[in-house]
């Protein structure tokens, strides 16, 4: 299980990354996250939507309503240019954290 703070911090880059591969709607985004993380990233389903709205408000994503073939109304989200830029900065930050941690966790050199 991943801690709450880390889940909260990673939500934004994860959503933006998923949307990079094309427009998507809430339910699908959640399913993707579950699949990709192997169920280790656990979100309360409902909590995704406020985050999506926040991102939309900040201008990183935009949305439009579509009707599915079952006649169900769905709100699709797509990433904006601003969102792409934001994702790049996020990515750099995450990678530098990753690099730092990797270095630290390299197996210690042994003297034999």
């Amino acid at each position: 299980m991943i801690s709450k703070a880390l889940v909260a911090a990673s939500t934004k880059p994860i959503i933006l990354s998923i949307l990079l591969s094309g427009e998507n709607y809430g339910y699908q985004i959640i399913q993707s996250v579950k699949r990709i993380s192997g169920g280790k990233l656990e979100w309360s389903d409902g909590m995704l939507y406020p985050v999506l709205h926040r991102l939309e408000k900040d201008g990183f994503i935009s949305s439009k309503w579509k009707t599915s073939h079952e006649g169900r109304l769905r709100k699709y989200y797509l990433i904006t240019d601003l969102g792409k830029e934001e994702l790049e900065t996020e990515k750099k930050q995450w990678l530098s954290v990753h690099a730092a941690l990797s270095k630290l966790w390299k197996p210690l050199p042994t003297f034999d």
Partner: protein
Amino acid sequence: MFDLEQAIKKWRKTLRKNEALEDGYITELESHLRDEIDRQIDFGKNKEEAFEAAVRCLGQIDNIGAEFFKTNTRQLSRRPPWEHSRWIPSLFWNYFKIAFRKIKRQKGYSLINIAGLAIGMVCCILILLWIQDELSFDRHHEKAKRIYRVGTQFGPTVDSREAFTAPPMAEALIDEFPEVLQAVRLDLWDEDINLLVSHDEKHFMEKGIIWADSSIFDVFTIPFIIGNPKTALTQPGTVVIAEDTAQKHFGDEIPLGKTIKIESDEYQITGVVENCPSNSHFQFNMIASLISEELSRDPEWDGHCYFTYLVLPDRYPPSQLEEKFPDFIKRHYGPEFKEEMGISIEEYYDGENRYYGYWLQPLLDIHLNPDVGRAKGDITYVYVFSSIALFTLLIACVNFMNLSTARSANRSKEVGLRKVAGSSKSQLVRQFLCESILLSLIALVIAIGIVELVLPAFRNLTSKQLELNLFSNWYILIGLFGLALFVGITAGSYPAFFLSSFQPAVVLKGKLRAGTKSGWLRSGLVIFQFSISVIILLGTFAIYNQLKYVKNVQLGFDKEQIVVIHRASALGQQKETFKQELLRHSRIISISNTSSLPGRHFDPNDHRLEGEPKKAYVLHTMSGDHDFVELLNLEMVAGRYFSKEIATDATAVVINEAAVKKLGLSDPIGKRFYKEFGGAKKGEFVTIIGVVKDFHFHSLHHEIYPMVIRPLTGPQGNYTSVKIHPDNIKGTLSTIEKTWKKLSGGQPFEYSFIDDDFNSLYKKEQKTGEIFAMFSILAILIACLGLFGLASFTAEQRTKEIGIRKVLGASASGIIFLLCKEFTKWVLLANIIAWPIAYYAMKKWLQNFAYRINMGADVFIIPTLLALVIALVTISYQSIKASVANPADSLRYE
């Protein structure tokens, strides 16, 4: 059968309740829900299970709503409106709004409630101010907690403790005990007495002149304005004066170096100090150097004439010093004692009931300990008034409880509806408490206004400089707010829990009968209220009866139309001329010169009978000339009084009956005392030539002490008393004044009447009586306010019953009787409860007097009747109104 669409519809409805969730959001969430349900059904769950799992997956609606709210709001707190604030209870402002509306709607009841609470608070605030002042005495001295007063204990019990000490003590203490850091002697004998102060050929009468060692400024905190505290009082004939006194005598001139005369001695002014605060146990306008007095250099240890104060190190236990006193006494007083008494001090201790020792009294205890050293305060009164304050406040709170529960029927529907609408019990409790706190806050504001209005009168009553400075001290504001909160919660708690516990189903059906359930409690509270009022009332009556008694009792001497001229010794050798000149006037009946007078100080002195030098009797002593008995119209029971014609009367004395009894003499005439008070040093005697009938020369607090009158000769004696004719007293007084001015060289003429002087001995009791009277009136007033409200409520509740009774033929007086019966019962019961408590309390108080009234039936009956009459008058308005109402009106709607 589970209907999925129906379930989703219901679910949507619950989402709608959350104000952050807009329609678009809900649609989005719903489509999510449906997707999830489809997936769950694919897994093989039935519709119902799938729906429940999907809802669960979505999470708490309120949390989602809160997140949406955060996304959309720009509010700093980002607290969604449906969540409770951490600081302010939900619906807080709503409670206030409702409370204000209630107050406005029920003007009469609100008025009674607020008025009652306000009066209770006024009592409480006034008394708290008084108590605060009493407890603040002497705290302004920086070393207050380390200052002790040395006293002398003359007998084995603490009753015989006094505060006076011998002149050489202060110096000896400093020399011998390193823990005594500083010591000072004060001579406060003339503190309350007018002394003649003159300078530049002008005469003034000045009170508050004290004598002190120069170390007074090391021990006590007395800030200097001009002058040097180190040197100000080190020389004989120097004096430091207070700011106001300097202003009065010299205006804006700097008085440093000026010479003034106090009586006949010259003093140079060496400093000006700040005025003495009123809450100091000694009061001064001038401090003269003690070494100006010859007595201050007296090396003898048997004179007890000065107050000695000392400063101990921080946290040094005074008992440790007290333990060293017995040796100290043996070393210093021992040799002198043996020479004087003929026995050593150790031998003296061996005798029965003998003790002589020193003790330490903390400075902060001095004011409230009335038994020692002329303290003016009394800790008992602090306790008594504190309880009065508390009880008046409780009476006011009881009013509120009574009226609120009595009116519960009117509010039961409201409570029912609120509960049906989803209000919880705790919310209702909060609402009712809010109402009572609001009322008590309004009452507080009114009370502060009233206090400001009556404070000048209260200052007069208590002769204290009391002030309510709201903004000088934060704790006064907080204290007052706390008071309002306390009153609000105390008064509101019972009604709040009572009202909020109604069952909505029951009250909405109208089954709850008007206030019957709480009837016993209401009557209990009224009885409690009236008991307290009656106790205070009884106390007031007992005090006034006792004061009336002590003022009208036969004192054994004539006290009417006797003018006492003070400072008679100022006439010097002219005294006899003064007497003869006045006696020429027809309106002057007799004149006598004396050293003391009834109501004034009589020196208690040791007397020894001839032949028994080891047995001392304490007799109170005065000196009087040969006209004294005639002046007061005293009766001689044996022998005769001094006569001008008989020369041997210079060595004669007259004693009273009490002295005869104390001395155990069957035939006192001709018996002789040693002339010296202490003992038999010179071997001279004085002879008893007469016995005067006992008369009260002290207040009635005390038994008549054994006393002895010595002959007064020449210019001695500070009082000249003149018995005058009751006609044209003013004219006679101006004649006396003219003669005085002529013979005293223009000195101010000071006089009083002996009956006034004597009555002023009961000043403390008089003040207590007045304060008691005031608070008993207020307590009764509050109780009556409550009674009035209750009566009007009862009358209102019973309108229909009264209507039916009238239709069936009841008379108006019958109805009035019916309504008054219950209240009368309560008030009488309250009286019965109050009697034993008041009896016990007043018995204790009366023990202050050796001569006292009997707490007979009359003391109880009048206040009881008074309370009853007041109560009946209070309820009569409502009762009469109810009894004369037309039954057709009250029954019309049935």
